[in-house]
């Protein structure tokens, strides 16, 4: 068992109180023994499947579906997944909430919160920020790089996921840096949390909700450089 008995009880209670509509947890994995797929070094695929399965056992509102990244290519493509392990959390619709790498350590908090928020279908952001995000009219991709031992990272991931929930144009990924070193190197990640928005916009460290939302607007070109400077973003 990855989840101990005390936490299982807490989670069962929490889910029975907080989950509204059914949630699907789609886990994408690879068969590490199948050398033909070239991805036989998936560090935590097995544990990610097990963790998701154990969480799924704690509420009948949660359904866990396990897919092979290569054998179930159509489903992986449908959800825009190209790496494993990956988890998509889908509710009444797909809000674009993803976890790349195992949501362990502090990230387990972000995983549980995502289940609850997706089930409720509400972001929990302030009205003002929901209004601001309403101005986004083109796709925005947020990637929050984390390590499971980073206490400041889970709040950043939770915020990014809430922002994805609040806008049809925004998707947000947690990326566990050690499991995807090529992505970490590509985006120059040497400290976490580091948030990358649309490839070349970065946020260093954890920031409050208002600041995060303004960064998203700035990355999407919805506020001017002057406005960004006034808000202390640059």
């Amino acid at each position, binding site marked *: 068992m990855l*989840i101990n008995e005390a936490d299982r009880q807490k989670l069962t209670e929490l889910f029975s109180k907080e989950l509204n509509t059914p949630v699907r947890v789609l886990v994408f994995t690879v068969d590490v023994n199948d050398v033909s797929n070239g991805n036989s070094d998936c560090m935590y695929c097995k544990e990610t499947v097990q963790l998701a399965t154990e969480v799924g056992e704690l509420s009948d509102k949660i359904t866990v579906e396990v897919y092979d990244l290569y054998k179930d290519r159509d489903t992986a493509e449908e959800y825009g997944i190209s790496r494993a392990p990956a988890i998509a959390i889908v509710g009444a619709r797909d809000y674009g909430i993803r976890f790349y790498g195992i949501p362990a350590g502090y990230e*387990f908090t972000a995983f549980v919160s995502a289940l609850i928020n997706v089930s409720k279908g509400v972001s929990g952001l302030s009205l003002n920020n929901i209004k601001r995000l309403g101005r986004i009219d083109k796709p925005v991709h947020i990637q929050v790089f984390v390590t499971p031992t980073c206490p400041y*990272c889970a709040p950043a991931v939770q915020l990014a996921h809430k922002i994805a929930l609040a806008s049809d144009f925004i998707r947000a990924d947690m990326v566990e840096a050690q499991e995807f070193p090529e992505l970490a190197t590509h985006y120059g990640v*040497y*400290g976490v949390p580091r948030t990358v928005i649309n490839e070349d916009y970065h946020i260093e460290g954890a920031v409050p909700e208002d600041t995060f939302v303004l960064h998203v607007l700035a990355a999407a070109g919805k506020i001017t450089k002057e406005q960004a400077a006034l808000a202390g973003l640059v």
Partner: protein
Amino acid sequence: MELNLSLGTAAPAEVYDTIIIGGGPAGLSAALYTARASRKTLVIDMHPGAGALGMTERIDNYPGVPEPISGRELLDRFREQALKFGAEIVQSQVVTTDLRSDPKQVITADNVFQGRTVIIASGAMGRTPSIAGEAALIGRGVSYCATCDAPFFRGKDVAVVGHSEMMADELPTIANFAAKVYLIPHGKLSPESKEIVTQHPQVVYLEGARVVKILGDDFVTGVEVKLANETAVYPVSGVFMYLTGNRPVLDYLDGSVQTTEKGCIAVNMQDGATQIPGVFAAGDVTCTPVRQVVVAAAQGTLAALAADRYLRKTGRSGSTSPESVDSASGL
């Protein structure tokens, strides 16, 4: 495999009457008074050795304690007294807060604590990046969190700057990943910290050294270090900073509490009230004109009395026998 699953903010803990952020003389004096009045009291303290009192080698002027005493020993006495009256103390860093919600939320890495009142007492040992190159290279090799970032420096050489107890606590984590660790103390290591250093052969202790510049354009490439009258460059990929300063520690408040021009929490000096109802502040975080242990303790007491009055006025208490602080203190 140990996953260390944290339920953290997903599962809030029970509601306290008073949550105190910071376990220095201000926070612990406040805790003593609220706990003694049967208010359910929680102190969240990052590290007893991270505050001004915990770091002070010797105190000669705390009234009622005529013999010279180390800051840590005096702090331990404050803790013992607060615990004796029923306060709970957890060691954790507050990372964010929501002080407008009801109840108020105080969020640490592992938990979300809820309180009807909050007393801010996190002291004034904060600093802004001041070493040449430091600010520009944050997240590009400059780090303030070993547990977060040490894995990025596996097999690489790094520098660790500072001599605090927190540094000594986190040094093993860094040494676990890095090939070579240059320890640049900016001051004197305690015997306990020296002991930790000797346990890690990959740590090179540069006694008496200071960093004058962090080098690198896009990423850290080295540190320029002054030792005696000589300057030397050590090539490193990462720099872990453990220096302290004298600025109020407020980062976890995300600007929600009003501050003065000097960046201190703006309070009514009579009772420590901030502009948010039910939120009080005490000690060095308020930039009192005199930074002394006895003043911090007195301010903590005033804030506790005010928190108790607030709880009585709003008729909100989680306690079973709400004896008032005023009566408990004999006022």
